[in-house]
């Protein structure tokens, strides 16, 4: 950081460098904030005259990725689940497999193989395989747990960076941060894109992340609308193809499959030097989980009128349960932390203008 602050050639790339220039010394809280403000576009790595093999061995994206991982680990609640993040790849795989098997077995045991393995049509088809209560209650409990845990972790991070709770509610700063986040401004580096998979500039990573982000939001919207249909309006699933839940779920699911698949492929091809090897398992685990949950969701849609529906439904729910359980202990926390960092950045930029 001291090298960067004396050089400043990278100030045009992203928000990290101007934020750095506002400081002369770097405390722990500053580093935690800067690490999460970094969108890992790598532009600074390839432009850096001090990058390895230079004797200064400066590797900003890697150093910040390592630090970022530390901020995630620090925030883990409850603390005894830290292991889930430390060996996240393994944890995600095991938990997901376990939850698929559990849901599948429970379904078979309670509904009986004939119900599971035959085709169901018409209203309440899904609930014939997995009864209403068994589907809705555990998922709702998990979702609530997930949201609360993520909020607690986010709060911890905000305090660690010396943020006051009131600052987080700053109206203008949130407006700017939402704009930056929705547009993934800093995945464009200085406007020309990221250096992925190599030192050439490309917008591919930004686009793929857009697919994931908006795909995820669409799936969330799909679930929410479906829940309203079901619980408020008492129209029960499955819904026709041209209904809101199915349409948004389908588009979102396809976007997620494309986005996560593309990002996984990019990770495979990328130059590994600027990456933190310690966070690879976590990154891949989360992407793979999103990939398979959207893929299984899409398969469920396509095959929902065949005897495979019961099995697919159980598998899809199993993966979603795995996703929900592991989300507060993996890559997903980056969403909140990075947003918080963007808010802090917006507050600082506004202060500077005044």
């Amino acid at each position, binding site marked *: 950081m*001291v*090298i960067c*602050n*004396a*050089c*400043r*050639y*990278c*100030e*045009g*790339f992203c928000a990290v460098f101007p934020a750095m*220039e506002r400081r*002369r010394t770097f405390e722990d809280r500053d580093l935690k904030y800067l690490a999460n403000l970094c969108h890992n576009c790598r*532009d*600074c790595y*390839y*432009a*850096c*005259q*001090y990058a*390895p*093999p*230079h*004797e200064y061995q400066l590797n900003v994206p890697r150093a910040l990725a390592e630090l970022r991982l530390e901020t995630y680990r620090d925030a883990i609640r409850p603390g005894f689940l830290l292991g889930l993040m430390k060996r996240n790849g393994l944890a995600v795989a095991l938990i997901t497999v376990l939850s698929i098997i559990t849901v599948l077995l429970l379904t078979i045991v309670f509904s009986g193989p004939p119900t599971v393995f035959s085709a169901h049509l018409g209203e309440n088809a899904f609930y014939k395989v997995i009864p209403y209560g068994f589907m809705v209650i555990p998922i709702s409990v998990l979702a609530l747990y997930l949201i609360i845990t993520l909020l607690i972790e986010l709060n911890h991070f905000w305090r660690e960076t010396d943020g006051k709770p009131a600052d987080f509610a700053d109206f203008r700063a949130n407006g700017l941060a939402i704009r930056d986040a929705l547009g993934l401004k800093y995945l464009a580096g*200085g*406007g*020309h894109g990221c250096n992925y998979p*190599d*030192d*050439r*500039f490309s917008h591919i990573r930004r686009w793929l992340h857009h697919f994931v982000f908006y795909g995820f939001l669409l799936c969330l919207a799909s679930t929410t609308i479906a829940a309203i249909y079901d619980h408020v309006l008492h129209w029960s699933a499955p819904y026709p193809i041209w209904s809101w839940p199915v349409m948004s779920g389908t588009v979102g699911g396809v976007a997620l499959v494309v986005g996560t698949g593309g990002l996984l492929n990019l990770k495979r091809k990328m130059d590994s030097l600027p990456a933190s090897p310690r966070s690879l398992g976590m990154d891949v685990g989360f992407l793979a989980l999103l990939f398979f949950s959207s893929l299984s969701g899409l398969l469920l849609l396509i095959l929902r009128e065949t005897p495979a529906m019961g099995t697919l439904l159980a598998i899809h729910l199993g993966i979603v349960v795995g996703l929900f359980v592991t989300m507060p202990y993996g890559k997903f926390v980056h969403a909140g932390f990075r947003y918080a960092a963007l808010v802090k950045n917006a507050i600082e930029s506004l202060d500077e203008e005044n």
Partner: protein
Amino acid sequence: MASTGPSAVDLAQIYDVLVIGGGNAALCAAMTARESGATVLLLEIAPKEFRGGNSRHTRNLRYMHESANEHLTGPYLEDEFWEDLYRVTEGQTNEKLARLTIRKSNNVGVWMSKQGCMFQPAMRGTLHLSRTNGFFLGGGKALINAYYATAFKLGIKILYDAEVLDLKIQDGRFASASLVTGHTFHRVQARSVVVASGGFQANLKWLKESWGEPADNFIIRGTPYNKGRLLRVLIDQGAKTVGDPRQCHAVAIDARAPKFDGGIVTRLDCVPFSIVVNKLARRFYDEGEDFWPKRYAIWGRLVARQPDQIAYSIIDSKSIDLFMPSVFPPFQGDSITEMATKLALDPTDLNQTVDLFNQATRPGKFNPAVMDGCMTAGLEPPKSNWARPLDTPPFYGYPLRPGITFTYLGVTVNEKAQVVMQDGQPAPNIFAAGEIMAGNILGKGYMAGFGMTIGTVFGRIAGKEAARYAIA
């Protein structure tokens, strides 16, 4: 990226244009020659990771333009450009070549962008230059990366780790070059050659020939690969030299910098707010003569003339936040005596120097943003601006040494970038661009981003003329 093994590059082929060097001037020459239809081989002495010569440490380029654009805040026309150059060189320039450089730099940013250069919008912190100089997004290495990518796409053959040892010149014409790459020797033929291999500042032995013992204490700010081999070859083969071997772009940098390649982060901007003393704890020059960007290029030579080529810039706590932080933390002391001990200076002498200075300061309205006229009275040497007493501990001290950016001794060229021989005749197919010929235009002094201007303009001229000769 570019495949770089010798296997991918055919050294038996006769190329139209051979480019020796791998920095900005070399790349501009190679791209221009290739776009003119020539086959081009570029030989870079450095490995791929350190490619680009000194250009990898640069940040901006000064160019003429008639109006503001996305990255420049206002017009910069020929006359003003020329006056700026005349002032810094004190007239030691070749007006014909200098004006050619300026005119040919007109709107060169457009061409650069086409070749992949990305400029950053004018930003704070670079106020002094935001009108005249275009700043590369990410700096020189990003520019060089973009140029190499373009060169590769154009089909220019590029060989890294390729050191040219000698040129075969027959009847005043270039015939072939001998080179070593991967421990094997090769001879490569080409119809014309562009030599853009930089100055000799990384050749410590050569520096010592010109500067004597003090050269041992010089720090080389840029690439360790510019050893001046091709400059020597051309001189030995009868090229007419230009420039004084003692002239170089030398700034005062932190004495703790690495011997080579420390680049920008070793610079110190505290001088105008400080007093600078030598190892005898005596001041030796007006620290507040002018704005730092206009003065920092003379301080390398000033320090080089002091005993053991070392000096110390000392400020008090009033000034610590007034300049860009540097990579090395300052020495710190709660009294001048403690400061002297930390810097290994004689405490009595330093106290005396500081006392004299403090007594000579006059009340005034200190303002770092303008030449505030806060000057000393009755002090020799004076401090003309920003002179405030050093009276508020803690005190901070930075050691300074001369840091050499590049040397000015070069080969004479004409307006076609052809190397001129001692008989005054230009060699028809030997061209030079960049630092190796910058001395034609910059005989003395320096202005920010102008080395890149010369490299870009003469690189393009050399590339075009070399291709024209080869293809005709």
